[in-house]
C-alpha cells in the first residue's frame, strides 16, 4: 500500500503510532486499566493478580509450617517444594493441552479417563520393551484425540457431549482391558520418569543453556526490531529483560539442587523438567506460530476466522490431537509416579486441568488464555493441595477450599472486566 497520492504527508495526524513490543503476558490484549498512577494492560494486571495470590498462599503456608526442625518454614523448603512440583507436573502438562483446546472454543472432559487408559496400556505392554510401552501411551492419546476431535470438527457434535461420552467410555475400556486389576510398573527407566532427580551438575548445565537462550533471544529480537524500523528497547530495558529471567532460573536450580535428608544429592525432579519443556513448547505454539494465532481467532470469532480463510475443522482437530499427545505423556508421568496403573487412575484430572486454565484467566468461551496463566493456575491448585495436606486439613475441607478458590478466581476476573 502506498500513501494517498493527493495528500501531503504533513497533513496527517502526528505519527504517534507507537508500535511498542508487547510484553510477555500482554500479547493477546492491551485494554488498559488504571492502577495507581499507571496504565497497565488488564491482561498483565490479571497475571500480576494471580502471581500476588500465589505469593500470598505461599507466605501463609510457609508461616503455618514453621517448626523447630524448619525455623523458616517447611512449605518452600526443597524437601517439600520438590514434592509440590512433582504433584503439579501431571496437571500442568494436561493444562497446557487443555488450554489450546479451550482457546479454540472447545472442551475435553475425557482427559482423566484417557490418562487411565493410556497409562494402563503402557503398564501392560512393558513386556514388549520400554520404547513400545512408552510409545503406546502417546499413540493411544493421539488416536483418541484425533477420533474425538474428528467427531467435533467434522460431525459437528458438541465437544462437551463427545468428550463426556469419552469420559465414560474410555473408563469402561480400562476396566475391560485390566479386568479391574492393578498393573505394576517394573521397568526401571519407566519408573524413573515419575520419580528420578536430575543430577545437580546436569541441572546447572540446563540452567546455563536456558540463560544462554534468554540472552540470544533477547538480542535477536532487538536486531529484528531494528531491521523492521521499530523502536528498540533501551540498553537498560534490554539488560532487565535478560537479568530477571536469569536470576529466576538460577535461584530455582540452586534451590532444587540443595541436598536434603530425603535425597542427599539434591536435583530437579525429572517430571518437572518434562513439565518445563511442555510448557515452553505450549507457549511457543500459542504465541509464536500461525497455528496458535488461528486458535485464538477461531475461539474469539469463528465467523471472522472462517471468512479470513482459516480452516476451523483442521485446527480444531489438530488441537485435540495435541492435547491427546500430552495426555499420553501425562499418563506416563502419573503411572510412573504411582508405580502402577490402577483402574481408577486419572479420575477427575480433567477438572484439575480445566480449573488450572480458568484460574489462570482462560475464558471457557474461547479466544482468551495463556500457557503462563494456566501454569500459574496449576501451581496455585498444587500449592493448595500440598499446603493443606501438610497442615493436616481434612480431605473434605480441601475439596471445599479448592472449589471456592476456583469460583472466587473467576469472580474477581469478571469484576475486573466489568470495570475495565
Amino acid at each position, binding site marked *: 500500500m502506498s500513501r494517498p497520492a493527493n495528500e501531503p504527508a504533513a497533513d496527517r495526524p502526528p505519527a*504517534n503510532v507507537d508500535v511498542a513490543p508487547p510484553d510477555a503476558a500482554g500479547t493477546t490484549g*492491551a485494554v488498559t486499566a488504571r492502577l495507581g498512577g499507571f496504565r497497565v494492560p488488564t491482561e498483565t494486571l490479571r497475571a500480576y493478580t494471580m502471581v500476588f495470590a500465589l505469593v500470598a498462599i505461599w507466605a501463609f503456608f510457609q508461616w503455618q509450617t514453621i517448626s523447630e526442625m524448619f525455623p523458616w518454614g517447611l512449605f518452600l523448603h526443597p524437601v517439600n517444594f520438590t514434592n509440590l512440583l512433582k504433584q503439579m507436573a501431571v496437571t500442568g502438562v494436561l493444562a497446557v493441552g487443555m488450554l489450546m483446546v479451550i482457546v479454540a472454543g472447545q472442551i475435553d472432559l475425557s482427559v482423566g479417563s484417557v490418562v487411565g487408559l493410556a497409562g494402563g496400556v503402557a503398564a501392560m505392554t512393558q513386556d514388549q520393551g520400554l520404547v513400545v510401552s512408552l510409545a503406546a501411551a502417546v499413540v493411544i492419546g493421539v488416536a483418541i484425540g484425533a477420533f474425538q476431535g474428528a467427531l467435533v470438527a467434522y460431525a459437528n457434535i458438541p465437544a462437551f457431549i463427545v468428550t463426556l461420552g469419552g469420559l465414560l467410555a474410555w473408563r469402561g475400556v480400562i476396566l475391560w482391558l485390566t479386568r479391574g486389576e492393578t498393573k505394576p510398573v517394573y521397568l526401571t527407566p519407566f519408573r524413573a520418569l515419575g520419580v528420578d532427580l536430575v543430577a545437580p551438575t546436569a541441572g546447572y548445565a540446563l540452567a546455563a543453556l536456558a540463560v544462554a537462550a534468554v540472552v540470544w533471544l533477547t538480542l535477536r529480537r532487538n536486531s529484528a526490531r531494528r531491521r523492521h524500523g521499530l523502536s528498540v528497547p533501551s540498553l537498560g530495558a534490554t539488560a532487565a529483560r535478560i537479568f530477571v529471567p536469569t536470576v529466576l532460573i538460577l535461584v530455582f536450580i540452586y534451590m532444587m539442587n540443595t541436598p536434603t535428608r530425603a535425597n542427599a544429592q539434591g536435583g530437579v525432579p525429572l517430571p518437572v523438567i518434562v513439565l518445563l519443556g511442555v510448557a515452553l513448547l505450549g507457549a511457543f505454539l500459542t504465541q*509464536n506460530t500461525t497455528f496458535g494465532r*488461528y486458535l485464538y481467532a477461531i475461539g474469539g470469532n469463528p465467523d471472522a476466522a472462517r471468512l*479470513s480463510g482459516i480452516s476451523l475443522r483442521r485446527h480444531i482437530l489438530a488441537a485435540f490431537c495435541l492435547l491427546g499427545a500430552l495426555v499420553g505423556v501425562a499418563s506416563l508421568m502419573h503411572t510412573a509416579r504411582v508405580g502402577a496403573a490402577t483402574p481408577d487412575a486419572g479420575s477427575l484430572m480433567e477438572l484439575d486441568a480445566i480449573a488450572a486454565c480458568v484460574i489462570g484467566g482462560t475464558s471457557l468461551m474461547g479466544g482468551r488464555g495463556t500457557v503462563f496463566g494456566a501454569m500459574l493456575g496449576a501451581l496455585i491448585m498444587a500449592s493448595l493441595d500440598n499446603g493443606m495436606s501438610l497442615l493436616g486439613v481434612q480431605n473434605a475441607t480441601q475439596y471445599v477450599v479448592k472449589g471456592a478458590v476456583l469460583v472466587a478466581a473467576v469472580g474477581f476476573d469478571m469484576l475486573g472486566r466489568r470495570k475495565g
Partner: protein
Amino acid sequence: MILLEMRDITKSFPGVRALDGVSFDLRAGELHALVGENGAGKSTLMKVLGGVYPHGTYGGEIVIDGEVRRFAGVREAEDAGIAVIYQELSLIKELSIGENIFLGREPRRLGVIRWEELYSRAQRLLDELQLPLDPRTPVGRLGIGQQQLVEIAKALSQEARILVLDEPTAALTDAEVETLFRIIRGLKARGVGMIYISHKLDEVFRTSERITVLRDGRTVGTDLTSALDEPRVIARMVGREVGDIFPEAAHERGDVIFEARGMTVEDPNVRGKLLVENVSFSVRRGEVLGIAGLMGAGRSDLLMGIFGAHAGRTTGEVYVAGRRIHIRRPSDAIRHGVGFVTEDRKRYGLVLEQTILNNMTLAGLRRLSGRFVTDVDAEAAAGGRAMKDLRVKANSVFTVAGTLSGGNQQKVVLAKWLLTNPRVLFLDEPTRGIDVGAKQEIYGHINRLAQEGLAIVLVSSELPEVLGLSDRVLVLHEGHVTGEFRRAEATPEAVMACATGHTRRAA
C-alpha cells in the same frame, strides 16, 4: 376516524439523526404504505411506535384515539393495541402454533395452563383467517410464509387495532402473497389500521389507500395512492442531490481482472429457492463496480457465494486474469487474490477481543509473518504502515479492536484485506454505521485504491454512495440483474426503478 397520529417524531443515534420531525397518521380500516430507501428511517419509526425505543429516547408525540401515549416498552405498546410483525420472525420454532400465539398470555387457572382452551381459541383464530392449520403443529415445521401468517394470528389474538407489517412478502411464495392480501382485506373490513412497509411498489399500489415516502429521516409527502404512480414515488424516494462528499475521481481502467459467470446461489434453508440466479459480471483493473439493490436483493449472497463462504449451494464460473479458478472455501479465494471486506464488521470482520495487529494480519498471516513460526516484528512493521496509510486512530497496533470506534474498526478490516495483497476487493456495506467523517475517509481510500489499479466491487444500500463512487453500476432485484449502467447514465431514478423491479435495462 384517525386511529393513530405520530407528531414530529425525532430520533438520534450517535452521529446520525435517523428521524427528523416525521409526522404520520393512520385511519381505522386503512392500509397506509411506508416506503423509502434502505436507511430512510422506516424501521426506526416503527420501533418508536412499537415501544422498542421507549418514551424519552425520542422527540415528538404518539397519539392514539386522541390521547397522548408514552410507552415505556414493547409490552405497553402491545397493550395499547399495536402489533409489529418484524422482518425477522419472532416465533419459537420448537413450540406449537397455539403456544406461540398465546406465549406469555396463556389462559390459565391457578398458574396451570388450560390447554384445551388455548388450543380451541387458537383454532378459532386460524379459522377466522381461513388458514388450514392444526394449532398443535410445531412452528418449525411450517414454511416461512405460513409462519408469517401465524404472526398475524398472534397479533389478532392480542386484539391489535394497529398492525405494522415490515416487508411481509419478502419470503412468501406467490400463492402465500395472495393469502396475505385476502387476510389484509378482511382486516380492513374489521377496522384494523395497517402500516405496510415494502420495497415492492406493485404490492404497495395494489393494497394501500395512502402512501407516505420517507427520505433521510424526513417525510417527503403523504398522498392518496390513487393520486400517485410508480415513477412519482420513485422520484420522491431518491430525490436528492448526490452531495459533493464524493471526490470526483477518474479511474484509469485496465484489463478485465475478475469475472463471474452464471452465479447461482441457493437458499440454505429453503430448498429450491434461489437467492441469486444466473448473475454475471466482470471488473477491470482500477475500476469500481457498484452493485445496487434493495434489502434482500441477493447482493451479499452473490459475493459470499463467489467467495466460497455461502452456506447455500453455489454454482457458476469464476475467472481471475482470464484463468478459470475454483473457489471452494475462502482460503481458495484469498490465494487467487480475491479480498472481501464483509458486512457487519463485529460479526464477520473482527475478533473484537484481540489487538488491531492480530486482526489486520489474520487473513494474510502466512504471507506477512512466516508459514508456521510467526514474526511479530515483521507483522508490527506492516501493521504500523497500514495503520498510518489508513489513518486508524489508536494508541498503538496493540490496542484491542473492540475498543475502537466503528470507523476505525472498519479501517482495520479494510487493512486486513489489503494486507492479503488482493487483485480484486469486494466491499460489502463498507460504511454502514460509521460517522460522516469516517465515511468520507473510506471513500477517499476506495478512490485511491482504484487509482492504484485495484479492481473493486462495491455493495452498498446507500444509493448515493454507489452512484458517487462507481464507474459502472449493476442493479439486482430478487436475485436477478435488472439493470446495468455506466456512471454517466446512472441517475438515482433510473437505478431505483430497476431496483424495485419496475423496469429492466441492459448497458
